[in-house]
């Protein structure tokens, strides 16, 4: 199986994730976009590791997973806190820190 296909798939996933982050307002959906981008990156790392025949990329993929898990915990906590105070999960409503 051609390894390039994995890279193309990763690129497509990353683009979908990025578009989700930029276009959707719901914080949960934005979060999912971010997760999609992270996993697209992971796929790329693993693919390149396979191409070059060493383990560096795979190790980094684990790191990303750990960081992503931690990030989800913190991020969801923030979203819940915001939802409790503002009764909304829209990121456009969270603009009070400007100016």
């Amino acid at each position, binding site marked *: 199986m051609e390894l390039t296909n994995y890279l193309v798939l990763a690129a497509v996933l990353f683009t979908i994730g990025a578009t989700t982050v930029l*276009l959707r307002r719901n914080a949960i959906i934005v979060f999912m976009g971010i997760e999609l981008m992270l996993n697209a990156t992971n796929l790329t790392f693993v693919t390149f590791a396979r191409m070059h025949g060493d383990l560096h990329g795979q190790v980094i993929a684990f790191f990303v997973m750990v960081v992503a898990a931690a990030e989800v915990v913190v991020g969801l906590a923030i979203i819940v806190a915001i939802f409790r105070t503002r009764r909304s999960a829209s990121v456009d409503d*969270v603009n009070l820190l400007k100016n």
Partner: protein
Amino acid sequence: MPTVTLLSALPRAQELSTLLPGRLPTTLGAQEIVPATTFVPGPFLLAPLLIALPLLGALVLLLAGRRSDRWGAWFGVLMSAGAFVVALVVFFSMLGLPADERVVDHRLFDWIAVGGLDVGVGLRLDPLSMTFVLLVTFVGTLIHVYAVAYMEHDPDKRRFFAYLNLFVAAMLLLVLADSYLVLFVGWEGVGLASYLLIGFWNHERANAVAAKKAFIMNRVGDLGLIVALMLMFAGFGAVDFATVFADAPEVGAGLLTATGLALLVAACGKSAQFPLQAWLGDAMAGPTPVSALIHAATMVTAGVYLVVRSAPIYEGSPTAQLVVVVVGAVTLLFGAIVGCAKDDIKKVLAASTMSQIGYMMLAAGLGPIGYAFAIFHLVTHGFFKAGMFLGAGSVMHGMEDGVDMRRFGALSRYMKVTWVTFGLGWLAILGIPPFSGFWSKDKIIEAAFVPVDGQEWRAWVFGGVALLGAGITAFYMSRLFFMTFHGRARWNDGSGNPTGTSPTDGPVRHPHESPALMTAPMIVLAVGSAALGGLLAFGNVFVDWLSPVTGHAEHAEPVLPVWSLITATLVLVLLGVLLAWRQFAVAPVPIVPPRGSVLTRAARQDLYQDQVNEAVLMRPGQYLTRFLVYGDRQMVDGGWMGLAGLVGATGEKLRGMQNGFVRSYAATMLAGLIVIVAVVLAVTTGTGS
């Protein structure tokens, strides 16, 4: 090496003193100026007191404030008189020394010692400085006494005496200094004191402006002295008299000319010589004792002192000497012409001072032949001009501070003492024998008629100017005298005029003689005006006394015989007096000044000196300033303000991007990332890696 010079110098000095006992009919050149010795005889150690006493007076009076109001005036008099007593002690001990040991440098303390420059503060005691010290302290003390009565009702009398003392102290420092730098300190002190005194009644705007004018014009002159100091430091590596004068014959004529001209600028500023003369007339804004002090003893004489003191510099530069003579001649005529048209009694006297100082400058520029007479005239002038200023003050005192001579007249009946003392001063300035002025002024005219370097045109031109000046002086001084003391009374005596002899308009005046405290100094000065010249001229005493400083002049013949010069001068003087008598004593003097000729109108305006200064210097200066300020605002400030504005405006625009929307920030980050990746790609493919 030092021992050798000492040994070789020692016998020569002894030889001189044994070979030249007293006076010798000598034809030695100007090089015979006696070098300064550093051995200080006992009484000379008192000399610092000369400066310290008046300075102490000024300090005490200024610091003690209102507490000293009661005794302040007499304390000032006491300090000035104390300085005079010290001056007498030093003078008599100097008389006891042989002539070639009378020049003494008394070093007091080190002041500035950096690199090649070593300036100490010291006093030069020699016949020239002692002459000035005696004049300043004696006349100064008399003016102090006079001022006690004149300023009696002034609430700030104490401050006035503090300034007077400061003036005397600064002038003494000026004439006693042993280097140009210390002289400069005194020079500035005199400028400061004159500023404070001219503007003493500064609650009136005109007086404050006059003080400022005097100060600023003096600053222009001071600049000349500063330049001279720099030139000396560059050329001689020293600024003390001893070194500079000893080295003067060895340096180039160019340096001497430049230094001489710079010194002349300084002298012009202080002595109100053309072209820096404009401040003198306005300086009359000060109280009359101040005018007397400025015009007789201190301040204006400083310029003449500077030129005579710097004789060795001028000796090396005939060009600078010629310029000094020209300045003297121009000022002489300038002052005389202005004096003929003024109606303000003090302004006439001021113009006359300018003219008389012009005579001294002229003499000082003639070289060794004139130095002694310049100083001689300065001394006699100090007496008669101080006397006349005090007389004018006395007239003003009796006339409720009126100064318009067209409102005077016939005052001789009411102020006998003032009339007589003023009359003696008048005869002295006219140069009528045997009064003081004759002995000094006539000698200057005679010296001016001596050709310099065989150039006869100079003798005729400058001699002619001096002669003409004597005639004009006689006219305007007689005009002043007759308008004030003779003719018909032109003031309103308040009687309603039953006899029809005095006008009924104008303020009422009750002329009366001044108190004894004022007339006593006038009498002393009048005696000096009458007798001093003859006494000092008798047996050439004064010229011989000064000879260690000024050198012996070679005897030279004027282009005309001496007797004919004296006759011509006297004839011109008498003509001037007669003319003034006819016009201002016999004929009625109009109260409203007639329109007059073009020259009269010009002279009333001081020959347009202020207009010229304003048009030539002030306005271009203002335009230049405005242009520079405009340039600064537009170009320099404008540039930086524009840059700041640009940064500010950009920031304002960028601020809009901080909208608080997370998605917008994310888009920015993405765009940035894409740009970075694009750049990295472009760079890596561009370098072929």
